[in-house]
C-alpha cells in the first residue's frame, strides 16, 4: 500500500485531473458570479439552507469555487484547493441526494439556473458525476506532486536564493 501511495507516476496522473477540475469549477462559477440573484433562487429551491443564509451563500460560494479552480489551474496551494473542492463536492452531493429524496424536479444549479431544469434535471447520474469529481479532488489532494505549477516555480526560486 505504501509503495502504491509513493509511486511517483501519481504526480503526472494528478496533473490533468487538477487542470480538469480547475476548468470545471471556473466554468461553473461564472454564471453564478454574474447572476447572484439567480443562484440564490437555485439555493432556495433546495429548501435546505435557512432563508437568512441563502443570499450570503449565493454571493460567496461562487468566489470560493473561482479561487479554488484558479489555484488548481496555476498550481498554487493545490492540496488546499483540492481539499476545498472536495468539501464543496460533499456538500453538493448531500444537497442533491436530499432534493432527490424529496422528489424535487429541478436543475442542480451547478452550471446554469433553474430555467435549465427541463434540460438538465437532477438525477442519480448527477450524484454519480459529482462523485467522480469528488474522487478526482481527493486524488489530487493525496497525490499531486506539483510537477508543474506556481508552487514548483516558487520552491525553485526559493532554493536558488538560499
Amino acid at each position, binding site marked *: 500500500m505504501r509503495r502504491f*501511495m509513493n509511486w511517483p507516476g501519481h504526480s503526472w496522473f494528478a496533473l490533468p485531473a487538477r487542470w480538469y477540475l480547475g476548468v470545471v469549477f471556473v466554468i461553473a462559477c461564472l454564471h453564478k458570479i454574474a447572476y447572484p440573484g439567480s443562484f*440564490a*433562487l437555485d439555493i432556495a429551491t433546495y429548501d435546505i439552507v435557512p*432563508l437568512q443564509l441563502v443570499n*450570503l451563500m449565493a454571493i460567496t460560494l461562487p*468566489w470560493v469555487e473561482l479561487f479554488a479552480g484558479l489555484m488548481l489551474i496555476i498550481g498554487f496551494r493545490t492540496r488546499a484547493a483540492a481539499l476545498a473542492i472536495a468539501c464543496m463536492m460533499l456538500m453538493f452531493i448531500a444537497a442533491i441526494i436530499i432534493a432527490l429524496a424529496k422528489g424535487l424536479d429541478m436543475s442542480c444549479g451547478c452550471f446554469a439556473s433553474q430555467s435549465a431544469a427541463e434540460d438538465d434535471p437532477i438525477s442519480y447520474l448527477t450524484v454519480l458525476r459529482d462523485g467522480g469529481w469528488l474522487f478526482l479532488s481527493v486524488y489530487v489532494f493525496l497525490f499531486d506532486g506539483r*510537477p508543474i505549477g506556481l508552487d514548483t516555480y516558487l520552491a525553485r526560486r526559493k532554493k536558488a536564493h538560499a
Partner: protein
Amino acid sequence: MQTVAKNDIGSSGGFSSGLGKALRDATLITLAACVIGLLSNFVHPEGIPFVAEKNYQTLVPCPVAGGKVTALAPGDAVLRSSETFLIDAREENEFRSWSLPGAMNVPYDYLDPTPAKVLKEIAGRIASSGARRVVVIGDGQQPDSGKWLGKEISGKGIKNVFFVEGGAKALQAASGSGGGS
C-alpha cells in the same frame, strides 16, 4: 523531469501535518474568497442584499404532459356512446354532487403529476372496457383540468383521447342537469 515537491503522504511530515497545513490554507482561501465576494457584491450591477428580504418563489417546473388531446362539444353524441370511456378530472366532492353515469373519478392536480400507478390503472380499465375512445371531463376553468389530464393519459400512449369544451359546467348546461347522476 523530476518532481520538486514530493507529496506529503510519504514525506517525513506525514499525512496529518500535510492535512493540517492544507486545512489551514483551505480555510484562508475560503475566507479570502468570501471577503472578495462580499465586496464585489457592492459594485455588482446585479448585486443582492446580504440577507433575503422575502421568501423566494421556489415552485419547481411541473412536468409538461405531451400527449395529443382533441376538444369535444358538450352536446356531442359520442358522450352517450357505449364505446366511450368517461373520466372525470374534478375533485371528489364535485364528482359526487354531479357526474355522468359510468364515469371514473381521477382528480387532477396541476402541481402534482398523476402517479404512474393510477395512469396504469386507468389504462387497464380502458382496455378491459373495450372502449374505442376516452373522454375526460374537467372543471371547465382556464386551464381546464380535463384537458390536462387528457394530455397526461394520451402521453402514456393511449389514443383517441378527448376533453369536453367547458368541462362539467358546459355538460350540465347542455343536458339541463338531467343527464347526470
